[in-house]
Structures are given as structure tokens and as C-alpha cells.
């Protein structure tokens, strides 16, 4: 089975950034993403879901290395200083390279 390498960028951040991040993803040219609701703890304290101002989301984007780079740079520039956010990436294999 022939597979192709792509990058999976995972972002965990404050739920109220969802709209803003989706706009960013569209502008950067991402062709798709997946969001799940999450909770957790990090440098900016505990974030429990269940109340609007609290709560995290977990965004996944499968894309080529260039977009992954652009995306991570953008997140760092725009959000790292002031928002609860972590980003990590790794390689994944996909079947339809033209899709991502």
C-alpha cells in the first residue's frame, strides 16, 4: 500500500480562540482541519471544560511541510505570548497526497 508523508500539526488552546484560529487556517490556505473539545493543565493553569470562558480545544491539521511551517510560525507570532497554547507536530502517512 503506497502511502505519502505529510505533517500533522496539533494545537491545544483556549476554546474561545476557535473562530479566530479557523479564520487563520482559512487564510493560510489549509484545506481541512479537525477540532475536538478538551480540558487540561499547563503553564497558564488548569482549564476545565463546562463553562464558556474556560475549556480548551484541540485542533489537528494534516498538511504538507510548507504549510505546517507557516502555520506554526503564525501561531507562535500571534498567540504564544498571551494565550494558553501548545503546538506539536509529527509525520503521518496518508493515501491521497493531493487531498492534503
Amino acid at each position, binding site marked *: 500500500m503506497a502511502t505519502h508523508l505529510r505533517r500533522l500539526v496539533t494545537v491545544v488552546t*483556549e476554546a474561545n480562540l476557535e473562530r479566530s484560529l479557523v479564520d487563520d487556517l482559512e487564510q493560510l490556505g489549509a484545506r481541512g482541519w479537525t477540532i475536538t473539545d478538551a480540558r487540561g493543565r499547563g503553564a497558564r493553569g488548569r482549564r476545565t471544560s463546562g463553562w*464558556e*470562558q474556560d475549556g480548551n480545544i484541540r485542533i489537528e491539521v494534516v498538511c504538507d511541510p510548507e504549510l505546517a511551517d507557516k502555520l506554526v510560525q503564525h501561531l507562535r507570532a500571534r498567540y504564544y505570548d498571551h494565550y494558553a497554547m501548545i503546538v506539536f507536530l509529527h509525520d503521518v502517512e496518508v493515501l491521497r497526497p493531493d487531498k492534503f
Partner: protein
Amino acid sequence: MSGIDPVVLFFLLGVLAGALRSDLRLPGAIYEFVSIVLLLSIGLKGGIELARQPAEGLAVDIVAVVAMGFVLPLLAYPVLRWVGRLPRPDAASIAAHYGSVSVGTFAVAVAYCARLGIDYEKYAPLFVVLLEVPAILVGIVIAKGLSRDTHWGRLSHELFLGKSIVLLLGGLAIGWIAGPEGIVPLDALFFDLFKGILAIFLLEMGLIAARHLSDVLRHGVFLVAFGLVAPLAFAGIGSALGHALGLSTGGVLLLATLAGSASYIAAPAAMRTAVPEANPALSLTASLAITFPFNILVGIPLYHRLALWWTQGP
């Protein structure tokens, strides 16, 4: 002024359960549902009464109340910045929270009036709508100036089409169009259940407040003092304005409560987007864990006395 309202006991139960780290929690979906129903109830009630007896000459009231919304944060800011020595973004953000309003506090005050049979101007829900946004705008301008960086378009969209404004105005409109008789079949959900739903809401607010209580001391004594004094001062201003506008005792009480309340939904969300440098824990702790409990436990009965003093003399 009479025994404690049982809905307030639900708040205390929530605080207690939260402080003891009980595993009691209300699902997020229920919290959202309960706030939606509360907002619609408040709006509908106002709309029905407007349909019954149209409020004339509202224009003056509207302008005056909006003006107050712009002024309050300007009064709070210098105190926060120079007495509290807070960084500019934090001072601006807290000022925005306290200039804006809390619908939950308003709902408790409405229940208070209902329980004691206090009449008020039925267009009072309009005040909530009018007061929510201006202070937030002022806070942002203080923090950032009229900078290009701020996406004013997106921001004002977010502000003016936030959940609470849409539901309050929507409720007002529906109540006004349908009128008292039209709404009768909806009474069971929006009016008969009002206090029960408010009780559930306050239970959850208690649990949330408890989660933030531990932060209170960490932020120092100034924040606590501010969270207790600001509502008193602002309620004083609100009541004075209410009196000047010729409102009834209930109207003065409600306007004082609104002025003295601090936002914990619209303001946090907006400041997070527009002034990310501000530490959200500061403003949320103050408004949620200090001012909200203070208002529903102590403030509202106090503002009632204040309103009586204005309307009936000392």
C-alpha cells in the same frame, strides 16, 4: 429586609460543594441551556410589559444609561491603574468588566423584586442591553488606543451579536409582538420555571466561583477591596441616575444593581480577543468570586434601601 431568597441558598450550596471539592458538577450543556432560558425569560417579560403599556419618552433614559456605560469604566480605570498599580492592560480590562453588567445578578434582583412585590419599569431589560457593550469599548480603547491592530469590525460584530444581546433583544421583540395573551402558552417554561432555573444557574455559579476563590488571595488585598467597593460606588451612581430619570423604587434598585454588577461573560470574551496582554484571571476572579457573591448576598438588599432612600427620602 426579609429572609434570604432560597435561590441564593443554591449559590451558597454550590460554593460549599466547590470549596469542599465535591465531585458535583453541572454539565456545560445544561449551564448554556439554563442561561439561554434566563435571557429569553427576562427579554420576554420586558417585551410583554412594553406591549401592555408602551413606554413613552424612552429616548432620554436610553441616552443617559448608555452615557453611564461609557463613564463608569473611566472612573474605575484611574483607581485600578494608580491606586492598585496595575499594568495598563489589566486596569483597562477590569474597568471594562465593572463598567459592563452581569445578567445573572440582574436576574437575582428581578427575583428579589418579584418576591417582595416591588414594581419596576418593565423596560428594565433594555438597560442590560444598553450597558453591556459601551464599557467594553472604552476598556479596549484605554488599553490599545484607537489602534489599527484592533479588528474593530470583527470585534463589534462579536459584541453586538453576542448571545446575551441577541437573546434579550429577541425576547423583547417576541414578547412585544406576541403580547401577554400570545405568550400564555409559553408561560410554563419562561415564567413558572424562572426561579427554579435561576436556582440551577446559581448552583453552577457557586461551583464556578468556588473554583476561583482560591485565586482571590493570591491577587492581593487591593483586588478584594476593589471588588467590594466598586459595586457600592457604582450602585450609588446607578441609583442616582435612576432617581434623576424619575424611575420607581424598583427601577432605581435594578439600575443600581446593574451599575454595581460586573460582567463575567461578554467582557472576558471580548477582552481576551482584543486585549490579550491582560491577565484574564485577575478580572474574572474579581467579578466572579468577589463581586458576584457580594452583590447577590449583600448588595441587592442594600441597593433596595438605597432606592427607598432616593424615592421616599431618608
